């Protein structure tokens, strides 16, 4: 299978990358790639557009950040706690949201996210506008010090691979097939006897947990958690990444995240620094007008057509 070779090649590249590029930048890419993959699980495979997914990223970041700052725990415990809380928030939100469809689903998630944003703004443990600063990275299992960027990078890479494989397995499992069936034709899935809302809910919780994983990891990488992580702009950004890369494809969100984060980084240090939002906007419009299948989607079509 040629896909296997491709996957191995990408993995090899990821192993070598920190020798050539600034590791913190690469870690940022990995965190956002995981975030986008988690989001894609919901949008691409279950057909649900959540417009408040940043909440789960931020929940992971705040919980992990707070625990690491307050108690001297090891990072893996901090991350697990972040993921669990994100999943719980996802469970509550999912229960409320999956009853609604299409644009109303998007609206419920947006409104719930705004409520959560308010909570994080006001709650004393988040540091309000200051955010949580100086979160220690700690030592993995109490043994491996993560302060060094190179060590941290391989830790983040491992987390990404675990998250990614989990999504891959989910999508290719019978559960994933049912999700796709719901996306394609919901009434049909219902008439076949599937409890559609339970499937949707499970997908929602899984997606929330993985977004939380990305957030927890991000908090350790940058050693801070802030309101930016829970803002609705961040929710918009993850939609863009997924759309650009190609929703409903396995590698699409990764490619989308690499492109967007890379673009932001490239623009930030160049003469177009003030135009980041403009460029993002243009990318949005191009995506919608010219290639709704995203980069990977178009690529696949090209391959199918010509080979």
């Amino acid at each position: 299978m040629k896909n296997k070779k491709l996957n191995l090649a990408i993995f090899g590249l990821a192993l070598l990358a920190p020798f050539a590029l600034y590791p913190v930048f690469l870690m940022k890419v990995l965190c956002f790639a995981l975030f986008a993959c988690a989001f894609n699980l919901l949008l691409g495979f279950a057909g649900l557009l959540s417009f408040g997914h940043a909440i789960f990223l931020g929940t992971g970041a705040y919980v992990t950040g707070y625990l690491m700052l307050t108690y001297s725990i090891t990072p893996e415990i901090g991350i697990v706690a972040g993921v669990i809380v994100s999943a719980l928030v996802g469970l509550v939100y999912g229960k409320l949201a999956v009853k609604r469809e299409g644009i109303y689903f998007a609206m419920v998630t947006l409104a719930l996210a705004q409520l959560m944003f308010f909570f994080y703004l006001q709650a004393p443990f988040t540091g309000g506008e200051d955010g949580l600063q100086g979160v220690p990275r700690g030592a993995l299992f109490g043994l491996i010090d993560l302060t060094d960027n190179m060590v941290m990078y391989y830790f983040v890479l491992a987390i990404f691979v675990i998250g990614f494989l989990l999504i891959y397995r989910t999508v290719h499992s019978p559960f994933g097939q049912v999700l796709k069936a719901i996306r394609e034709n919901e009434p049909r899935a219902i008439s076949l006897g599937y409890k559609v809302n339970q499937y949707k809910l499970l997908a929602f919780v899984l997606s929330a947990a993985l977004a939380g994983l990305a957030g927890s990891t991000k908090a350790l990488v940058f050693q801070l958690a802030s309101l930016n992580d829970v803002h609705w702009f961040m929710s918009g950004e993850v939609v863009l990444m997924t759309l650009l890369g190609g929703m409903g494809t396995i590698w699409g969100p990764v490619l989308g995240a690499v492109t967007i984060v890379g673009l932001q980084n490239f623009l930030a240090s160049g003469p177009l620094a003030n135009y980041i939002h403009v460029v993002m906007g243009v990318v949005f419009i191009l995506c919608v007008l010219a290639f709704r299948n995203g980069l990977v989607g178009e690529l696949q079509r090209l391959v199918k057509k010509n080979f």
Partner: protein
Amino acid sequence: MLHGYALGAVMATFLGINLFGLFGQLLVGLINGSFYALLALGLAIIFGLLKIINFSQGALYMLGAFTAWMALEYLQINYWWALFLVPLTVGAFGILLERFLIRPIANEDHLYSLLLTFGVALILQGLFTDWFGSSGLPYAIPEELKGGTKLPFMYLPNYRAWIIIFSLTVCAATWFMIEKTKLGAYLRAGTENPQLMQAFGINVPLIVTLTYGFGVGLAGLAGVLAAPVYSVSPEMGSNILIVVFAIVVIGGMGSIGGAILTGLAMGIIEGLTKYFYPEASNTVIFLVMVLVLLVKPSGMFGKEA
């Protein structure tokens, strides 16, 4: 003078509630509600008649405020002319937007129009941030509306009173035009059953374009109205957009009267919240939105889907 107010404030308490303070907040809420109503109206027209989710409404409101500022700064066009010319300009911009960007995806899922117009909003905000910085520009209150009126419970600046009167008039007139006149009937028919109207020889694409232009023009108008009281800044649109969006959803997507009433009501609810629990004032609308969506997903005034 301060002591007059303070004394009054102390006296006008009821069950431990400072009534003067409360009335003041309610009035300020009504002023904000007028903006919400105007913006929500434009959004509701565009969604109700065209089924386009216009996420750039906030950015076009910002564009309206900046156009008024530039007109005054560079062309010496005063506030009153701006009130007339800016909505036309912004509306014309909207027409171009509809014609070249939105029409090509008219038959796709609604979510695509949301994403596309979100992109437009990002571009506008980015450009204006680069050109004018984000610290905000001052726009003077027109001479005729300076000063204020002393009410028993507060000092009401004349311009704020003007905002309420003017925007309510515009909202009422628009509602009347769409719901009660022949022109409005054509409009509703043309968008509900385009084939039939086309067969009657009515140019439906033109109607769509003009309707979009009108809805967007309302955002421009709100922008001019806002310029003298809020600082004219590139972020003014993105801050208000989500709130206005929530209002349209609460009112029932596409319900024009619903958008206007909800806009005013939410302004007042916000005012109440500012009095009792100020920190939550930005959030209370979303709480209402969640509740409404869970109980009556088509919104307070929407038709059952």
